[in-house]
């Protein structure tokens, strides 16, 4: 199996630096630039490359921060700011704070943010509308089905030793299902937070580039 042109450690470093540089851009622009740079590297480094060739390629390609600086000013760019964090929190537990409305506000914030693609926004909206609030509500239904059946039996004239007749799904099925259903919104919430990009003002945190090929900065 031929090694991928992008497997070189210097390329990895470059791409990581690129990710930080593009974190503040709107999601669609971010994806487009990442795709273009990756294709460029694949094209240029297709033949087996020496270290020197890789270094040279990355130097002529240019420092990611310079490339991103070339991005013409667009209408708002952000990484993961307060807007995004609040959106995710409300999506998850907004229904507990203010029933229904809390979650709806989360959805509004989700869709008005520039940090996510449309696909990500759809995911955030439809993996359990209502967030954990709805999940809790859903939990109550099978639980009440189970207990209801039991008490009815013992209220009757039948002996108390009667086994609970579950007309609903069995507990060993319901409980794992309930856990999975609850995990859905939580997993999506974590995914959205990470997909939103680096926190705003992240630029200064980048470690001094050992990979700065042109020796700038």
């Amino acid at each position, binding site marked *: 199996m031929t090694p991928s042109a992008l497997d070189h450690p210097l390329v990895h470093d470059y791409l990581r630096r690129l990710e930080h540089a593009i974190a503040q851009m709107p999601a669609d*622009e971010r994806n*487009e*630039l990442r795709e*273009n*740079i990756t*294709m*460029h590297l*694949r*094209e*240029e480094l*297709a033949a087996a490359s020496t270290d020197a060739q890789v270094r040279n390629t990355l130097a*002529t*390609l*240019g*420092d*990611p921060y*310079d*490339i*991103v600086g*070339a*991005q*013409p000013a667009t209408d708002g760019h952000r990484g993961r700011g307060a807007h995004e964090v609040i959106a995710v929190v409300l999506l998850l537990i907004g229904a507990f704070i203010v029933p229904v409305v809390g979650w709806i506000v989360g959805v509004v914030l989700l869709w008005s943010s520039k940090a996510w693609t449309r696909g990500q926004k759809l995911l955030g909206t439809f993996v359990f509308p209502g967030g954990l609030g709805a999940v809790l509500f859903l939990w109550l239904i099978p639980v009440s089905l189970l207990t209801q059946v039991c008490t009815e039996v013992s209220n009757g004239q039948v002996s108390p030793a009667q086994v609970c007749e579950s007309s609903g799904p069995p507990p060993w099925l319901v409980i794992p299902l309930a856990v999975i259903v609850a995990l859905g919104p939580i997993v999506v919430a974590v995914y959205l937070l990470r997909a939103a990009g680096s926190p705003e003002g992240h630029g200064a945190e980048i470690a001094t580039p050992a990979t700065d090929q042109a020796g700038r900065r």
Partner: protein
Amino acid sequence: MATPTQLRRGVLEFCVLALVAKEDRYGFDIAKALSAVAPIAISEGTVYPLLSRLRKDGAVETTWVESESGPPRKYYAITAKGRRALADFTEEWASFRDAVDTLLQGETP
């Protein structure tokens, strides 16, 4: 006051447009062509944000073309809107350039 870098970038967008006006080209090719003509002006990578902007403005459109020697390539083609923009810029640039040269050479009347 606009820095030389900002001036360069405004103009380079039209240079990129000029490169695809003659024939459809793919990103890598455009990057190489531009830096061959103006190596000190920009690093190759800065072509890509310019191409994105041109695409968003409707001056170019992209199509994917299968390539025998690897993954599909994204080709850029100039649109009618792009041609008009390029024509306008070419005209403006000529008179602007002449005016600036005149002033820089101190030959103001």
